[in-house]
């Protein structure tokens, strides 16, 4: 018996959407062994990790709170990845969005006004776009790889945030803690489920994902993104601008990441702090792939990844598991997902070598 891999000519849809499930299953299995190695009770720890977040209303609400920014960012990233634009600096764009949003909130601190929140939305999106415009400009003008520039800018954004919360924006009554004042009511997103932290930002994420899906499937712009990503020469032939697509996808991703950052500070956090998120900008990369770069898939993927965050927090409390375990899980999930893609593109055939061996020609060129 030998294994043979043949490229598939037509790819069945069930495989495309089925393999993420396989990847999740394999990750859970690997987690079982990982917990065993760490000397934990694997069954109980997995229960804490995967099931406990879903048991209470508060847990479910928290799931939406965490999935919201992941979905929002991943949607933007997915459109970029479709266009072969590798923006991995969403964390920085998120940070800039948060800073811009917070800037409005602090500028109108204590004031009333229905227009404050909308203005924060605009500012957040602009902040993210501005940060994403730098790699877009460098890539379209000088052909500098957006991978490295967008990532480097993440470090810079974090440091800008640090300067602000340590300096000019520090809460004067905050006992010298590096954080801003708490936003006042007009700058806080309304909670939509009493007794939880679930806020209106969740709708923004859902809306963005659905809109992005429509964009990708029903519009010429979405088609352009896909053609530029899959076949740049064909895009040129089709009359689609390569540079325009780079700008579009980076600005869109920047705007969505910026919105996510603004929503974080105007929602669950309520102020500007030096560490805004547990790495949503990076985790969103995994979410985008897990959702198959399809915005509807990303909604599901965002929820799955949110479970791992809350499960990780719970496991930290109840099983003394280091928080880093969440990262290991997420990395493994992406590995399995990328590996299972092989099954999508290639057909595995078990080939009996007996049939050939039966014929007595030992020196024939054999595969």
């Amino acid at each position, binding site marked *: 018996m030998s294994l043979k891999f*043949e*490229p598939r*000519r*037509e*790819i069945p849809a069930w495989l495309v959407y089925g393999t993420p499930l396989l990847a999740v299953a394999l990750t859970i299995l690997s987690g079982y062994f990982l917990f065993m190695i760490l000397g934990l009770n694997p069954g109980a720890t997995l229960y804490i990790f995967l099931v406990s977040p879903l048991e209470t209303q508060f847990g479910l609400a928290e799931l939406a709170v965490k999935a919201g920014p992941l979905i929002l960012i991943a949607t933007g990233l997915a459109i970029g990845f479709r266009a072969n634009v590798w923006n991995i600096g969403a964390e920085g764009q998120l940070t800039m969005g948060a800073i811009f949003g917070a800037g409005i909130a602090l500028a109108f601190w204590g004031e009333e006004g229905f227009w404050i929140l909308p203005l924060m939305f605009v500012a957040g999106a602009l902040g993210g776009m501005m940060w994403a415009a730098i790699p877009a400009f460098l890539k379209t003008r000088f052909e500098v790889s957006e991978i490295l520039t967008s990532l480097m800018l993440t470090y810079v954004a974090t440091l800008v945030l640090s300067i602000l919360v340590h300096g000019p924006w520090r809460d004067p009554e905050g006992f010298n803690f590096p954080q801003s004042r708490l936003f006042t009511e007009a700058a806080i997103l309304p909670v939509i489920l009493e007794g939880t932290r679930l806020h209106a930002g969740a709708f923004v994420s859902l809306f963005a994902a659905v809109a992005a899906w429509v964009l990708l499937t*029903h*519009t*010429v*712009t979405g*088609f352009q993104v*896909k*053609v530029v990503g*899959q*076949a740049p*020469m*064909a895009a*040129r*032939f*089709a*009359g689609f601008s390569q540079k325009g697509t780079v700008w579009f996808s980076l600005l869109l991703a920047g705007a969505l990441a910026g919105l996510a950052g603004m929503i974080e500070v105007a929602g669950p956090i309520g102020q500007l702090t030096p560490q805004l998120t547990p790495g949503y900008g990076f985790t969103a990369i995994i979410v985008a792939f897990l959702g198959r770069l399809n915005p509807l898939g990303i909604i599901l993927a965002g929820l799955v990844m949110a479970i791992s965050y809350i499960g990780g927090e719970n496991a930290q409390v109840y099983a003394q598991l280091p928080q880093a375990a969440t990262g290991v899980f997420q990395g493994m999930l992406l590995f399995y997902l990328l590996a299972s893609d092989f099954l999508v593109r290639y*057909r595995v055939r078990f080939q009996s070598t007996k049939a*050939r061996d039966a*014929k007595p*020609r030992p*020196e*024939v*060129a*054999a*595969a």
Partner: protein
Amino acid sequence: MRNDAGGAPPRLELRGITKRFPGVVANDAVGFSVGPGEIHALLGENGAGKSTLVKIIYGVLHADEGEVLWNGQAVSLANPHEARRLGIGMVFQHFSLFDGMTVLENIALGLEGKPDMRSLSGRIVEVSKAYGLPLDPRREIHTLSVGERQRVEIVRCLLQDPKLLIMDEPTSVLTPQEVERLFGTLRMLSAEGCSILYISHKLQEIKDLCDHATILRGGKVVGECDPKVESTRGMAQLMIGAELKTLSRRGARPKAATRFSVEALDLASDEPFGTSLKRVGFEVGAGEIFGIAGVAGNGQNELMRALSGELTVATASSIRLDGKPVGNLGVEPRRALGLCCVPEERNGHAAVPDMSLASNALISARNRMKLAAKGWISRDATRAFAERIIQEFGVKARGPESAARSLSGGNLQKYIVGREILQTPEVLVIAQPTWGVDAGAAAAIHQALFNLAQNGAAIVVVSQDLDELLTLCDRLAVLNVGTLSKAIATADASLEEIGLLMGGLHGMTPEVPAVHGELGQGSGQHVA
């Protein structure tokens, strides 16, 4: 047949070689033999399985069944090293060279063991001189012409003192003069006792050069013959498996109004090793088919981009469509005015392989055929248009939702050509219309082009295949190092004249014996 003489075993013998790829049997129980010093032709259309077969002989691919005998002994050819150790050399159709490395390094990489670089350099100069293939070992590959690159491949083989040399479509990139020079080298090798397996689909060449021919069709051996005796028509029929169909050509036409003109077009190449265009000019009238001949890499890619609008030029008037200057317009505005294009490369340029045929219709037809409006795609209209192309051009596909990559080369090409022709263009610019396409599809495409011209469109065909241009075009010109020659009417063009225009770059003027005039007339027999 030479290989039967003296009872000595043939140098190479194949028995029952079978190779399957997903969905296709590339070689089906193929068997033949090649004697010492014999020049043996392997003749067949594109897709007949020739390249697969020789890759098996060279150890790049492995047969599923069958055996290879070398001097009467069964051998295992697990990889090219083993083939080379036996004395088998191969010159690939798409050269196996490394552009950024020197001639010396390229040759060293194709030899067995770890040659001493200094003495190798001397041997390269020596051998290349001895066989009339001058080479400078220090030059980098990307600075060489296509003909010179082929020399590198040949010298690489010669340095290993081959007993069998495999040449895969070696002349498709050469000027007629270079071809003659190559044949001289091959005859010299044959006289020294080296066998040559010569793969081609060009009948006249095989008649000129080869002692024996094996004809492949659909992966099977369908006949053997002595090409010196057998008529080209007879071989062509074996190769195609049907009576040759004659194209219904238009008669002579009166001179018509100019529809498309290019005047003093200058364009710097946008590629690192590209060729810039220098004062290119030509005119095409209504109903005319105009050919642009030339060896690849002489500015064809740049010209295609300039004509299609993928590259715009500053002087708008250097390209005119029905008198209107369009040089500064991009792809879509030109298309809106009626200029449609078929780029040379199907996969990734004219079509996106992983997308459906319907989506591929959107690539170029979305505006002219109203498949999208105000940025929104109409799926019904798109599907209907794709369905129409499939129907009218006899594309073998499951339907508009089939991925483009699931189609064979010929079917995809029919789809692409159909997509442009059904948009009823005023001007059609088409590159390599039948490259790698089977004879049936090629004939259909040629007929479609004739019909389009009949209806008054102006057509520009850019092709390396002279025979195809002579079949299709009313007039043609040759592109050489970015300069276009004066146009000549195909009716009075001799192959010799065109060949000299093509070879202008290489400075190999008349010292080489002129190509026989009958090659030109042979074009009708050649299967495009």
